[in-house]
């Protein structure tokens, strides 16, 4: 019989097994602790956080040093679930202060519960008073984090200034590496155009999330505050223009011709930029987005309006430069221009008439002759070649292309090219086919900014500075070089005086826009009444003043405003008067403009496609 306990192997093998088991354990521990280097950083990830320190965003001033955009402090309410009182909190009072819905609060607290040691966002955009009320409650585990948000003291220029909002996934994909989810970014307007200057540089801090104070934080980068910007806008003028445009759809753009600085850029309807700050941002944004009149659409730079008669200025200048028109040329007009079946109507005025009167009284027939002269110029092989030349001239005025201003989202407008007509008329077309272009109708489209730029170009007698919105940036001596360059049109300066004379006559002697007359300021202007298929004519007016050494060039466009003289002229003259004299001598005109009712057509009731 086998004797237990005396078999050598029976006592050795268990020991080997013990050695084996402990050997494996030791090797595994050695692997984890000595060889596998991942765990150090994983451990750090558990409790160290890179905390981004957001810099205050730069402020925006108007040309007179008035605040357009300020940064104001607000507070985010955070909660650390672990530290919240065990007996529950006074949620009723909390709801009252934060104005959260019970559901939102419940969800936020549930979120906080998921990561009980970390501060979780409960409510955003608390005011200083609300913060004090919360401090009074003195709930452990609840604390507030200061943050800056935008504030718009003048409450003007919603589209112009833009807003600041959380970056979307789409924008994140397109933007540089600077941004991260949850970052705020300028959206639209100046906020977007000068995002890089305004935002500053984020700071970075390595933070022990369990340390209560920030003394243990290791600062990697200090945040650099954003640069402040002085923009070219005259806040008072902008507010006045917006006030005049209230209830109308359209835009007012005014430029200082000697610098290209944009004084006014009012798009109507507009919105209060303060609406897009804070808790109600989302709701207000959606409300504006669903508004059939599209307040978020910046008409001053994005629309494609037919320029109407204001475009006669361009055709006149081209005719003069080409030599097919002389100031003394007289054409007759009997209620319009007739050629074969073609009839372009005109209003009653004396006939025949010369160039400056044709401009002043806005004779359609005269410019039909001019346009035909340009296109049927024998110097060119064909009408189509002549049309190319015409397009080049128009392009040199900044039509049909972006002006390359510093304003993002600038529209091109539209000037049809030769290929367009070749396609539409199967290559058989001539000056009569495109005769609408002579009076700024047809396929032409331009932005109010382009029209204002036209006024500035004529005011300068042949050149323009690229219109821009920013005057100076903190810490920078100058702006981009392109804003200091004179952009000459292809029309030589000597030809402008005749046109200016016509514009002056139109305002001051016997033209369509005598309503724009300002005693002692020699205002020059040209009205436009753009026909459109959707309803009453668009009312437009380009103007500058004074005639010599002009200080302001302006374009006003009022959709369905009727004659140029009925809506656009009063608005323009009031803005000019305000700018030039700082006073309003015609309060009745202000009342007239404000009380003028415009019937808008169903075009605005079209539902947005979801």
């Amino acid at each position, binding site marked *: *019989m*086998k004797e*237990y*306990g005396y*078999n050598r192997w*029976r*006592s050795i*093998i*268990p*020991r080997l*097994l*013990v*050695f084996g*088991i*402990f050997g*494996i*354990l*030791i090797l*595994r*521990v*050695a692997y*984890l*602790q*000595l060889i*596998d280097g*991942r*765990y*150090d950083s*994983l*451990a*750090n990830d*558990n*409790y160290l956080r890179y905390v981004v320190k957001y810099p205050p965003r730069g402020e925006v001033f108007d040309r007179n040093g008035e605040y357009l955009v300020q940064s104001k402090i607000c507070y985010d309410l955070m909660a650390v679930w672990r530290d919240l009182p065990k007996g529950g909190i006074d949620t009723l009072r909390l709801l009252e202060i934060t104005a959260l819905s019970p559901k939102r609060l419940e969800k936020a607290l549930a979120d906080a519960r998921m990561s009980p*040691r970390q501060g979780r966002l409960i409510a955003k955009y608390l005011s200083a008073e609300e913060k004090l009320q919360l401090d009074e409650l003195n709930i452990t585990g609840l604390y507030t984090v200061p943050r800056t948000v935008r504030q718009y003291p003048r409450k003007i220029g919603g589209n112009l200034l833009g807003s600041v909002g959380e970056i979307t996934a789409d924008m994140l994909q397109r933007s540089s590496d600077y941004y991260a989810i949850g970052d705020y970014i300028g959206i639209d307007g100046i906020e977007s155009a000068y995002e890089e200057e305004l935002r500053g540089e984020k700071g970075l801090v390595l933070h022990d999330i*369990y340390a209560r104070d920030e003394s243990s934080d290791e600062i990697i980068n200090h945040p650099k505050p954003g640069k402040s910007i002085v923009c070219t806008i005259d806040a008072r003028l902008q507010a006045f223009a917006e006030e005049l445009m209230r209830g109308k759809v359209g835009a007012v753009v005014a430029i200082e011709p000697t610098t290209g600085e944009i004084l006014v850029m009012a798009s109507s309807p507009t919105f209060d930029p303060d609406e897009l700050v804070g808790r109600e941002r989302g709701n207000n944004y959606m409300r504006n987005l669903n508004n059939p009149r599209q307040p978020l659409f910046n008409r001053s730079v994005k629309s494609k309006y037919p320029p109407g008669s204001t475009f006669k200025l361009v055709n006149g200048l081209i005719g003069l430069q080409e030599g097919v028109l002389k100031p003394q040329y007289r054409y007759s007009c009997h209620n319009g221009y007739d050629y074969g079946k073609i009839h372009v109507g005109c209003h009653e005025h004396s006939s025949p008439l010369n160039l400056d009167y044709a401009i002043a009284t806005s004779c359609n027939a005269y410019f039909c002759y001019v346009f035909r002269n340009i296109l049927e110029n024998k110097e060119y092989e064909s009408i189509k070649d002549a049309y190319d030349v015409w397009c080049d001239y128009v392009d040199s005025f900044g039509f049909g292309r972006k002006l390359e201003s510093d304003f993002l989202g600038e529209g091109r407008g539209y000037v049809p090219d030769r290929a367009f007509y070749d396609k539409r008329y199967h290559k058989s077309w001539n000056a009569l086919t495109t005769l609408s272009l002579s009076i700024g109708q047809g396929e032409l489209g331009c932005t109010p900014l382009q029209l204002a730029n036209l006024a500035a170009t004529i005011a300068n007698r042949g050149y323009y500075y690229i219109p821009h919105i920013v005057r100076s940036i903190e810490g920078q001596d100058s702006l981009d070089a392109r804003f200091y360059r004179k952009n000459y049109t292809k029309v030589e300066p000597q030809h402008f005086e005749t046109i200016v004379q016509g514009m002056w006559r139109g305002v001051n002697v016997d033209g369509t826009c005598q309503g724009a007359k300002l005693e002692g300021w020699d205002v020059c202007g040209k009205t436009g009444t753009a026909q459109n298929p959707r309803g009453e004519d668009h009312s437009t007016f380009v103007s500058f003043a004074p005639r010599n050494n002009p200080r302001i060039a302006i374009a006003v466009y009022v959709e369905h405003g009727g004659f140029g003289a009925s809506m656009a002229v009063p608005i323009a003259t009031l803005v000019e008067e305000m700018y030039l004299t700082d006073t309003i001598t015609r309060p009745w005109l202000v009342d007239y403009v404000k009380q003028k009712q415009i019937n808008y057509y169903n075009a605005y009731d079209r539902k947005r496609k979801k």
Partner: protein
Amino acid sequence: MTARERNSVRLFAGVDRVAVILYVVLTLVGFASIFSASWNETSDSPLSLSHNYMKQAMWLGISWVAALVILLLDSSVWHKFSYFIYGFGILALLSTLAIGTTVNGAKAWISLGGFRIQPMEFAKIAIALATARMMSEYSFSLDKPKDLLRLGALLLLPLGIAVLQNDLGSGLVLGSFLFMLYREGLNNWLCVPVLFIAMLFILSFVFTPVTLLVALIVVFTLSAVMMMRESWQLAIKYVATLFAVSIMLHLLLNLVVESGTSYYVSLLTTTILSLVAVIVYAFRKSLRALYIIVLLFFVSIMILPTSDLMFNKVLKEHQQKRIQSFLGLVSDPRADYNVNQSKIAIGSGGVFGKGYLQGSQIRYGFVPERHTDFIFCTIGEEFGFVGSLALLLLLAAFILRLMRMGDRQQETFGRVYCYCIASILLFHVLINIGMTIGLMPVMGIPLPFISYGGSSLFAFTIMVFIAFSLDASTRRELPTYRYI
């Protein structure tokens, strides 16, 4: 020598001082770790009994007193009362089914005035004592099926109760007795099948039944062929016949009957039929091993379909998830989270650790159960590889010391008992530390002497001091023993 001196000497006479020192060091390391894991610097009253470390200190005191009491007792009481203690242990286990408290899904605890006691901790002592008593019977032999069955019944009774308690982890500890049984001369042919079936059970979660079936047939055939080594022609004939018949059967089934059955069905049928021939062959040549292989094959075939059933019926959902997660079959974020955080804590300790009370992962509570089941993380993070190595070496030394105590016992009872508790400790250490470093699935099994838990520390203390006491009385009787 006065009577009083003799008494005080007698208390420690023959006690293995190395083992006692190891025990004391381990319990102190345990206390220090628990202190680190539950120390809260902001507490107003650091000495309040509400703190885990103060509770543990109290239990440490109680355990040391109990250890002295056990050394005072005559070691023969353990032999005398072993069955009585076993009966008491079984009663205590059964009582949990009636009045037990449920902790972590296991109804294995009894609440006694603010403290929770896990009767299984104490029942292990009783089982070890009873096993030792049974195996030390004069006529007991591991080669006798009757004795094996008796022993099996002795072990399966508490195991069954543990399963009912839903405390499978503790129950599995009894599986570690195989270690002791091997030492006691359990037939290799019984060790191998047990391990084989255990492996099959685990593999059945990983592989599809068909894969396993094919593997089984191959293993069986190869084993059978190995057994026929006297005649290799016969082996080749056997395999060739097996395949030829199975292919013919397959063709018959599919071409003639068009039943569309799988080839494996034919192969399995043929293999099972061939067993008759194999058994006849084994009988003629009196190859006992071949019987066992055939038996094992049958058991395996039976286990295959039932393993899923057992997995689903016996194990609770969270246990299934842990096992599946460990085997990499499904991802259980919670089970993964515990092990990941534990690995991060240990791995970030590096060579020398972050210093006592400086471990960020422990301090900030990333490791769940950091003072109980995952206490090893505290040592791993704060003392690094040096500390972990030292602890592992201490534990290994302690277990080896217990085995040495067993080997030098004059009585079978003492030897079996020492090996029993060495097996229990080895199992606990392997599962617990293996779990913290991702080698073992997560089971609620404490690290002896280190993990927080009064009843655990108390029970382990009694357990090892019974061994010390048995060892001391043996050594006192040795002629070479010198009184101190």
